[in-house]
């Protein structure tokens, strides 16, 4: 058996090779290349040419073929180069473009013909593939010819400049040529065009910016910058390579904004303020977008905005006229906040740092006035009292949410709580709330915010004239006792006995400052009316059963009602139109202690039942204010002390500064403790031997178990 070896059989049709063969075949191909370049029709068909090329490679004449190709192509390109070089003026670029298109077409055809060589001979001999060869030759022979190189670049740049100056240029031509450079390699694109393009742009925009910054005002300059950016963007998308877009944009930014940052800022400060004042959202947005591009540009805008808000707020808070009407004042605050919320949303892209700046500005100026907590509570009171028809639940909710936002800015939240409780109690007991729902909603919001025992229950009160309020669930207030008329006293005693009889172990205190009474009164001409009055008012009126005239002072002595409350009471009885059951001798608006009061015989009313309202929660007078504040200060002391003990108990040993810091942190949800008061409490604790100073380090405190 013959062993068969597996081998590749040689090509069967062995063609006889002779030295002329190569030469002849090459001549055919060479002519073909000429024809292609000269746009002549080729005599041999594509198939024939292709086969010839194939044969050459097959018979090991690939080298000759390749070299020949190179030479031929080169000589053609040289001719082309010359013709381009000699093109005049405008036609230079057009000629270049035309020849480039031709070259590409020719190259395509040549490559197709030489495809076999491209796929076999080329790789195995590490030659440059045909297409690439074509590109390289084009680059080296045509583009980088001495004359063409600079001329091309300069011409392109010149066109750009002309377009920048307003002329219309051939964008298509630009696009093609720049694409050509890109096709030749991105480094060619960069070296032969982009680098110089960017340089020239820098110079251009430096000049532009100088020109405009001198002649324009701020708003116009920004508009100009915006338009330049748009133009360049558009140009880039039309004929530059996409990689150039971001580069040219940053050139514009740098030259037009960054380099003039300081000038712009100075220009901008007053302009910005005017924009803010006038709600110029578009201008603000433009400025925002401009400055965004620049390092720390936004900080500048933010700072200007912050200090403007602070100043506006400060003026508002210090304005004595405003402060006379607290509700109005708080309304202004809300308006101010709304305004800036809008600015930040519409012009400043809802930027978080701007929102924070707004918040801190508000926090700053709201706490400049010690009366802010009181005023905000009065505002709430006003809103919750008003029986405004047609105001839906929703609107009340929105208002309350806004109030919560102001509440968050307050440092002295405990002071607010105090006033809130006072006002709430008055509202509830005189049935003057818009809705229980609204009250509950606000309480819930406050509780959520502080986690504190803001008032809890709203009890459905019975129609008894006595409301027994458990101290736990109602805001307690010191209840100034007053002298009840004897008729009432008897009844009160009876009630007390009854109540304590059935609920032993409790204490009953009459809250005389909040109560109601229905009095039957007969006036001069026999008119009978039923008057619905408060306890205090009742006490005052009953006095006139036994006297015709009394001075304010006398009334005070008889009823023991605190003077400030009494004055308000008398106001409501004597000075309110339609409700003046008493008459004051002097027709002045204020009540002085010597004023004389008479029972008003001439009182008339269309209604049988007359409700004499209590004068609404007033702004506190100066002395009341001081008193409330003192109470708050007093209440803070034990809180501070508890906080100190808590801190020291857990830390055992702690330095003075750290104690202050920890205690402040613990209390900051309620109020900002005064370090001096903290120090005082520490000393008190040292005296009472809860703490001691360390013997060696005097800044250290130690907890004594």
């Amino acid at each position, binding site marked *: 058996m013959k062993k068969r070896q597996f081998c590749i059989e040689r090509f069967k049709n062995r063609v006889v090779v002779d030295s002329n063969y190569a030469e002849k075949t090459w001549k055919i191909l060479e002519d073909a290349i000429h024809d292609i370049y000269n746009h002549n029709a080729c005599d041999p068909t594509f198939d024939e040419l292709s086969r010839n090329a194939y044969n050459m490679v097959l018979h090991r004449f690939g080298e000759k073929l390749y070299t020949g190709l190179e030479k031929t192509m080169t000589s053609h390109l040289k001719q082309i180069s010359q013709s381009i070089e000699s093109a005049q003026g405008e036609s230079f670029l057009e000629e270049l473009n035309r020849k480039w298109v031709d070259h590409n077409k020719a190259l395509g055809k040549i490559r197709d013909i030489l495809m076999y060589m491209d796929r076999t001979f080329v790789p195995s001999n590490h030659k440059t593939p045909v297409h690439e060869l074509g590109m390289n030759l084009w680059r080296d022979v045509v583009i980088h010819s001495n004359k063409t190189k600079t001329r091309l670049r300069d011409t392109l740049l010149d066109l750009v400049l002309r377009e920048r100056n307003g002329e219309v240029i051939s964008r298509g031509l630009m696009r093609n040529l720049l694409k050509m450079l890109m096709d030749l390699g991105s480094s060619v694109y960069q070296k032969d065009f982009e680098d110089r393009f960017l340089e020239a742009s820098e110079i251009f925009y430096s000049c532009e910016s100088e020109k405009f910054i001198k002649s324009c005002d701020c708003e116009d300059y920004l508009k100009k910058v915006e338009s330049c950016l748009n133009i360049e963007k558009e140009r880039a998308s039309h004929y530059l390579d996409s990689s150039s877009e971001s580069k040219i944009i940053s050139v514009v930014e740098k030259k037009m904004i960054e380099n003039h940052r300081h000038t712009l800022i100075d220009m901008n400060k007053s302009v910005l303020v005017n924009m803010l004042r006038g709600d110029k959202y578009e201008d603000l947005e433009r400025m925002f977008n401009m400055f965004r591009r620049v390092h720390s540009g936004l900080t500048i805008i933010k700072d200007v905005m912050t200090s403007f808000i602070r100043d506006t707020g400060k003026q508002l808070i210090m304005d004595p006229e405003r402060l006379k009407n607290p509700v109005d004042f708080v309304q202004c605050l809300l308006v101010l906040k709304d305004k800036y919320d809008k600015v930040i949303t519409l012009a400043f892209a809802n930027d978080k740092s701007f929102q924070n700046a707004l918040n801190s500005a508000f926090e700053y100026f709201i706490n400049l006035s010690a009366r802010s907590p009181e005023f905000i509570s009065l505002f709430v009171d006003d809103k919750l009292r008003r029986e405004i028809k047609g105001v839906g639940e929703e609107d009340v909710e929105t208002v309350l949410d806004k109030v919560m936002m102001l509440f968050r800015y307050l440092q002295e939240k405990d002071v607010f709580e105090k006033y809130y409780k006072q006002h709430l109690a008055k509202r509830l007991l005189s049935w003057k709330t818009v809705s229980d729902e609204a009250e509950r909603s606000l309480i819930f919001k406050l509780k959520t915010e502080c986690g504190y025992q803001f008032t809890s229950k709203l009890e459905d009160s019975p129609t008894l004239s006595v409301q027994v309020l458990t101290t736990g669930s109602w805001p307690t207030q010191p209840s100034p006792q007053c002298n009840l008329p004897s008729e009432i006293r008897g009844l009160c005693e009876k009630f007390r006995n009854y109540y304590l009889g059935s609920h032993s172990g409790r204490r009953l205190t009459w809250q005389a400052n909040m109560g109601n009474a229905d009095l039957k009164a007969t006036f001069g001409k026999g008119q009978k009316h039923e008057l619905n009055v408060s306890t205090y008012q009742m006490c005052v009126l009953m006095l006139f059963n036994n006297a015709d005239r009394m001075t304010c002072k006398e009334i005070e002595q008889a009823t023991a009602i605190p003077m400030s409350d009494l004055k308000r009471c008398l106001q409501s009885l004597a000075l309110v139109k339609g409700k003046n059951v008493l008459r004051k001798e002097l027709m002045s608006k204020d009540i002085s202690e010597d004023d004389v009061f008479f029972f008003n015989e001439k009182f008339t009313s269309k209604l049988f039942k007359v409700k004499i309202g209590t004068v609404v929660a007033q702004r506190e007078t100066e002395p009341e204010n001081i008193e409330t504040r003192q109470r708050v200060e007093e209440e803070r002391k034990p809180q501070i002390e508890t906080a100190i003990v808590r801190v020291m108990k857990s830390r055992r040993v702690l*330095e*003075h*500064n750290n104690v202050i810091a920890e205690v402040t942190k613990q209390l900051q949800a309620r109020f900002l403790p005064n*370090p*001096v008061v903290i*120090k*005082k409490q520490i*000393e008190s604790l*040292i*005296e009472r031997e809860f703490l001691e*100073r360390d013997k060696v380090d*005097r*800044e250290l*405190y130690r907890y004594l178990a």
Partner: protein
Amino acid sequence: MRRAASKKTGQSNSNPSAADLFRSASSKANSKELERIDSLFYSYANGSSGLIDPEGIEALCADMEVDHTDLRILMLAWKMKSEEQGYFTVDEWRRGLKALRADTVSKLKKALPDLEKEVRRPSNFSDFYSYAFQYCLTEEKQKSIDIESICELLSLVLGSTFPAQVSLFVEYLKNQNDYKVVNMDQWMGFFRFCNEISFPSLSDYDPELAWPLILDNFVEWLREKKKI
């Protein structure tokens, strides 16, 4: 050999072995001394109470030719570790005089200058200073002393060492209304103040540190005063 560390009681530093010798050899002399100390005590003591009372102290002072308000009497009390102001018990008397090696009035008088030196030693003075305050707490559970007495005590105890600070602080105390009494912490704070803060510049005083509040107020008062 470790030294016996008992500077406060004034016992002399000596080798234990030497002390033994001393004691054994002079035990007779010792008991004689003790006898004399005791009899000196009873010459001044009040018959019924068995203590030297204020009258007795006055008599003692007269014999020593020292004013009974003199600081050295306070120093003597300190040496005795006397607890009650104006009274000396027999134990306290013994403790003090034994430490001073005095069994007669004249010896006691002669011991006073050395006693003063000993008290003024920085290591002792702080202790003496705090003792002075405690000594004046006469009532049980009393923790603080009224302003008037504090001013006197301060002048007595610190007047010679820190005259400027003391006189100004006394003036401040008399003029202010915030404090009616001064407690131990504040008393000691003032001593620290005199020792640590440069006077009259006050440049290194920082109210944000743990200085007692009364001193913060004092410094503020001083600074206001300077402006005028």
